[in-house]
């Protein structure tokens, strides 16, 4: 048990307080509300609880997994768990008392530095909840800065991100959401031209996009900036050891899902919202920011800074209500970036692009299967099947214990039998052969 009080302790403490029983302390609570009936099971001891949870975890199916669509199977280097399990990191709070939190503060500074380096941006905050909420907060910032209420987005952003963004605008009809149509799965200058207009607060691009395709962010960015519109890019950090950065595309805000930096899938969280921006926008960022400064003796130290943006100071005028963020996930990502370094991140991107290229090659060798789009892709791609994608997925899951990917019909009815397939650095040639064999035999 986690309570240290002995009967003797309780007696002494009640006596010191000057009451005879605990009930005397809670007289401010109307008695009819005190001690209600609870219909709860008996408490288990640790041995029993361990057995119960172990059994539950085994009810989840261990599959060979080719699902991506915003969450990616990653290898977590062993050193990361060893470090983030240290109680000094794990059980600390937000670093409000800077002098006794220099460990957390310096790691956040290093996190911000790593994210700026990866994204090619000037500023990063200390983290948001996930990629979707980061993007939603960037869109909110754009609306706040411009006073405009129209948001244009690429039709190939993650549909969950769009849903979250609309929720972040409280589903209010005041705001106009316009999708930029696609050509061959991507945004083109021609498709962009149909929707761009000066009344928009921002344009949102995702690259690699939801279909895995790498967008021509530089040309798109140029067109967007020419209209004086805020350019927001959502990018997968695992791609940025190799691919063009949002900074090179001219992004004003760049966001991403940091789960890609070695975090486990864990059925959706905790993940890591990466949020970066260009220098002039630093005071528009939501969330915490750590800065380097000096102490009384001129020695280097770190503090939470630019707090005048935040809820505990500005209350209803704050840039966001965010308080708790994903600090430990940010630490994990920082250690990941440190262990990999620039060469490791390049190799990671190559391993992803290579695995996906190999999977696409093998799958499209199967008669009746073709690639849906022609563009360059990173670690996932869409194929069109000659049969119902949901049924094939179900069949192969049951027979072979392989999850072949995400059927797109529910999200994009016009795409019919399309399947989004992902392969990351965790996949080998043998895994891909197993996938191709299973698909071929079960078509």
């Amino acid at each position: 048990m986690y309570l240290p009080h002995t009967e003797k302790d309780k007696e002494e403490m009640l006596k010191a307080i000057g009451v005879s029983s605990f009930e005397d302390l809670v007289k401010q609570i109307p008695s009819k509300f005190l001690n209600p009936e609870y219909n709860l099971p008996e408490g288990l001891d640790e041995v029993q609880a361990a057995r119960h949870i172990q059994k539950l975890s085994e009810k989840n199916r261990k599959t060979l997994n080719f699902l991506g669509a915003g969450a990616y199977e990653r290898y977590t280097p062993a050193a990361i768990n060893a470090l983030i399990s240290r109680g000094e990191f794990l059980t600390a709070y937000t670093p409000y008392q800077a002098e006794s939190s220099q460990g957390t503060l310096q790691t956040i500074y290093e996190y911000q530095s790593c994210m700026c380096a990866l994204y090619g941006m000037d500023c990063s905050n200390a983290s948001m909840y996930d990629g979707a909420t980061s993007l939603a907060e960037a869109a909110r910032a754009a609306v706040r800065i411009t006073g405009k209420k129209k948001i244009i987005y690429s039709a190939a952003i993650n549909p969950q991100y769009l849903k979250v963004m609309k929720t972040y605008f409280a589903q209010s009809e005041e705001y106009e959401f316009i999708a930029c149509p696609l050509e061959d799965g991507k945004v083109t200058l021609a498709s962009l031209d149909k929707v761009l207009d000066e009344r928009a607060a921002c344009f949102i691009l995702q690259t690699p996009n939801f279909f895995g395709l790498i967008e021509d962010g530089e040309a798109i960015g140029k067109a967007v900036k020419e209209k004086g519109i805020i350019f927001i890019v959502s990018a997968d950090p695992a791609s940025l050891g190799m691919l063009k950065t949002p900074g090179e595309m001219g992004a004003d805000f760049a966001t991403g899902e940091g789960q890609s930096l070695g975090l486990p899938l864990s059925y959706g969280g905790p993940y890591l919202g990466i949020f970066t921006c260009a220098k002039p926008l630093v005071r528009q960022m939501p969330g915490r920011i750590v800065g380097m400064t000096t102490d009384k003796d001129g020695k280097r130290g770190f503090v939470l800074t630019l707090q005048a943006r935040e809820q505990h100071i500005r209350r209803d005028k704050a840039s966001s209500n965010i308080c708790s963020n994903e600090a430990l996930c940010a630490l994990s990502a920082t250690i990941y970036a440190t262990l990999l370094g620039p060469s490791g991140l390049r190799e990671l991107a190559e391993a992803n692009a290579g695995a996906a290229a190999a999977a696409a090659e093998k799958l499209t060798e199967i008669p009746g299967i073709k690639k849906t789009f022609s563009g360059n892709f990173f670690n996932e791609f869409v194929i069109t099947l000659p049969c119902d994608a949901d049924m094939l997925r179900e069949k192969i899951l049951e027979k072979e214990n392989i999850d072949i990917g995400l059927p797109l019909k529910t999200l994009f009815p016009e795409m019919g039998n399309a399947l989004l397939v992902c392969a990351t650095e965790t996949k080998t040639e043998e895994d891909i052969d197993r996938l191709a064999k299973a698909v071929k035999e079960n078509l």
Partner: protein
Amino acid sequence: MIDNRLSIEKSVPGRRGITFKNSLRAKAAIPAALCRKEAPLLPEMSEFDAVRHFTKLSSLNFSVDTHFYPLGSCTMKYNPRFNEEVSALKGFTAVHPLAKDSAAQGTLEMLYDLSSRLTELTGMDGITLQPAAGAHGEFTGLITAKAYFRAHGETERVEVIVPDSAHGTNPATASMAGFSTVNIASEPDGRLSLTKLKEKLGPKTAVVMLTVPNTLGIFESRIEEIAKAVHEAGALLYMDGANFNALIGLVKPGEIGVDLMHLNMHKTFSTPHGGGGPGAGAIAAKKHLLPHLPMPLVKKDNGKYFCDYGDSRSSGQVKSFFGNTGVLVKAYAYLLTHSAKETGDIARMAILNANYVLAKLKDLYPCYSKEYCMHECVLTPGHDMIEKGLKTLDIAKGLLDKGFHAPTVYFPLIVHEALMIEPTETESKETLDEFIKAMREIHDEGIADPDSLKAAPLRQAVKRLDEVQAARKPNIRWQA
């Protein structure tokens, strides 16, 4: 001498921690035109360099494991290692959020069981586990209320009433959810004024947000009348559950008239704060609000668990995928090991500990309230300290040098020079006695030699830091 070099300053070109030798790398064929021009400015370190770097940094932190951490409103209780171990089981961590329900039955059953237990503890009718943190939960609560009023054609309800003792997240959330905030000044005893509330309630009121117990550590004794007034005005009562550690197993918010409330897994339910997160901030709701919660919700049919994606009455989705499941496993593990009575003991011992600290310190540090407190108390420096020019900040810094984390300072805003102390239930009497001794010494030493206390801390990695310089010339990343 403390080594405060950044990782990038320890970087040596050519050093590596992790490499990827996967043969498929050779298959990568991305045209150079799509690639970045320069490699990112990241450290190059061996694995051991990195392990030593981060281990040394960790040693510069105070944490619950190493120090008493009475940070008011944050519930810095012990974080059981059992929770950590089971949440790291591969069976849980390897599940993709888009896995078919049939492949995720273990996780779904866990979430379903956790939902049932939390629903029972709160006395509500249902719960969403999607929000990633407390403030995210508040936002979820308010957009749920918004969807409810929209469905009932009451779109003229645009105001959220918040007492001036509330956490900053309450008014910030109201703005984010598209409401305007109406503030109410607290009564001299720290409670909400029923008269003032009734003056502000009206056809424009959507929600009244109330922290119970409030940020002064006091229970709203008139909660029944408050709830009645709120409901008569056609509005909803939202309870900020940041302080639920005072009520768990003792009072069901559903019975006191609350329509919607959030719970912080990283406070009441013992999941670690991780230096600022991740948390999880479930929203429990009464029946009339359930269709308006964000989706998906976990449901059970015929012994099988599944995600229900709701319909157009839902307020949407506040996060990609389900929620912070990895955190929720920890909260589940915590609840599994507690019976109903044992959950009540959490609140009882939290209240006992706070009152013990209050009783032993109030002669030197006057308490804002004259009553017994719930799970936390708000003290202030006495006149003798103020006359010497000593401030709450000095007391906080003095505590660091005595090996204690500081309480929450300067909050709630309605108390001048506030020191908000929440010991939590997992601290022993001996630890509290040491803390009480340190607080009394700080008082005596401060009176005898105020300048020394104003210079504190002297025994930390750094002395007081120049925050003005940090904000004027922001240096928030390394550069080449």
